[in-house]
């Protein structure tokens, strides 16, 4: 599966996509399609697609950590959990309006990112991976055992929010909510990638020492990546809580973190279109092959291994230079 094996049609297509104007056209068409799909889709399809947009947000968030800054985070579900529980607790137990809980969720996930990232981001990458894994498990166990989080059974009966008087309760509502969030996440990712900070991430990823010698605060820029990634997870979790109306600790397992990571790796670390493709593959694959059941994660793991061995840049083609 070397790049030379790409058919010339694909190469031409990619070259064509290199032009800013052409890329905008494609994006507009895709956005338009995404907007009108609910008019023709049935409820099941809508649910699956909503889920795909949801994973797109999570994967884009993790992509900032893994793809841009090159840090392996094996506990990303923890930030998603922090967001979901913040909204869940504030709405169901304190009766606070959903929209007001979003800033709180963002703040809490940011704090969680700073608390875990601050002292650990100077560690070697493999140690960091283990620390994030441990942190993910700690968050889940805490959620399982505290009273305020509803223990092992979690929180139920989280109120659906209303938006200018319309109660967001139908599938189509959440489809649009998650679509808009995903578009916003793409926008933010794109802008960050092509910014001073985005370049700093790339410098640090390529050569930490050289980056530091150029005056870049290695730990500082990593912390930015970590905290921004955490915020993506927090926001996604917040909306997840009101969409599901119930959350339980078992949603936020290590397997969940690995799944999100898989989406990032599958499509191509650091590439926004790749990550979107990865997130969709993650959601659509088990829906298309329903008979697989418990084999799902096994197949995902095998795919992940094959990708790493033969095409570490992911399925999305690399830029032609």
């Amino acid at each position, binding site marked *: 599966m070397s790049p030379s094996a790409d058919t010339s049609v694909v190469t031409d297509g990619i070259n064509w996509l290199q032009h800013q104007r052409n890329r905008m056209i494609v994006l507009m068409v895709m956005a338009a399609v995404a907007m009108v799909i609910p008019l023709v889709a049935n409820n099941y399809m809508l649910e699956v697609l909503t889920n795909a947009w949801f994973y797109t947000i999570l994967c884009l968030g993790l992509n900032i950590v893994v793809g841009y800054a090159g*840090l*392996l985070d094996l506990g990303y579900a923890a930030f998603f959990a922090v967001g979901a529980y913040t909204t869940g607790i504030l709405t169901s137990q304190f009766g606070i309006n959903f929209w007001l809980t979003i800033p709180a969720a963002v703040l809490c996930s940011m704090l969680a990112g700073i608390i875990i990232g601050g002292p650990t981001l100077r560690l070697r990458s*493999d140690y960091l991976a283990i*620390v994030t894994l441990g942190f993910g498990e*700690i968050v889940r*166990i805490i959620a399982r*055992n505290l009273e305020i989080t509803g223990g092992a059974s979690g929180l139920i009966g989280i109120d659906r929010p209303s938006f200018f008087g319309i109660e967001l309760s139908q599938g189509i509502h959440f489809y649009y909510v998650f679509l808009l969030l995903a578009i916003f996440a793409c926008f933010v990712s794109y802008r960050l990638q092509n910014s001073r900070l985005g370049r700093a991430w790339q410098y640090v990823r390529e050569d930490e020492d050289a980056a530091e010698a150029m005056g870049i605060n290695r730990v500082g820029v990593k912390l930015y990546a970590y905290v921004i990634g955490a915020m993506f997870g927090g926001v996604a979790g917040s909306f997840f809580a009101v969409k599901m109306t119930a959350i339980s600790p078992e949603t936020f397992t290590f397997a969940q973190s690995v799944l999100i*990571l898989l989406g990032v790796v599958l499509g191509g670390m650091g590439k926004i279109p790749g990550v979107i493709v990865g997130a969709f593959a993650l959601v659509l694959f088990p829906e298309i092959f329903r008979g697989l059941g418990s084999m799902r994660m096994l197949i995902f793991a095998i795919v992940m*291994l094959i990708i*790493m061995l033969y095409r570490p840049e992911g399925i999305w083609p690399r830029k032609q230079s």
Partner: protein
Amino acid sequence: MSTLDIILQQLANGLILGSFYALVALGYTMVYGIIKLLNFAHGDLYMVGGFVGFLILSAISGLLGESWAAIVCSMVLSMLAVGLLGVIIQRVAYRPMLQAPRLSILITALAVSMILSNGVMAITDGEYLAFNTDLSFDGLDFGNVFISYTQLALVVSASLLMVILYLFVNKTLYGKAMRAIAIDQDACKLMGINVNRIIAMTFFIGSSLAAAAGVMAGVYYGSLHFSMGFVIGLKAFTAAVIGGIGSIPGAMLGGLVLGLLEAFGTQIPFVGSEWKDVFSFGLLILLLILKPTGILGKTEIERM
């Protein structure tokens, strides 16, 4: 029970737990020492070892029953099989990745870990498997402190394996080559050492020690589950870090320290057992932040 009795009993429990941790930690430390790879799949090799041991035991129980002889026999065979599996994993998944960025090889190791655990999950349908043995429940009874012969045998065999490993690494030419590669791989190539072979051998030894621990755990706890590798993997890694990753005596020491800490940790009042893992992971995180070189690890050149 007097305080002294509690201390003695927890000491015994801690030693048993610690010898499991030490056996698994050895594999982490050896692989890390030689190719600087954190082998996420190592805990899963322990789990696979348990299942392979169970399979062999069931196959030969008609012949030898489920006695000590059968258990030892299945443990040795499981060690060989899992050792080979470790070598295959190294050859297929890790060797092509050694020059790749660290992130890639870590993700590869994660993928291997997921393949092993989910593979066993698919085969066993996610069920617990009873590991039946007909070992007696007798043991040494010191009044309030009780140590079963099974526990005693497990600690003795774990110690035996570690002594053999220690002699192998320090007294044989292969062991010398292993230590040399850990220091400078390129120089070893120039000196005509078959580096790939020694790395494969390291994986074989590390994996088979994990398998031995897996079979022992099956005997001790009486059941097996596909997810059992995950937590012990983390804890053994903690043990390896406590001792100083890359150091073989460090892994043994770290395993014992962690085993004892956990055993005595259960005696802390007001802390329920559901918080046990939070305690261990928290300890790991603190350790990595405060003293990443561990007790016996070499200090690296200090960077600011």
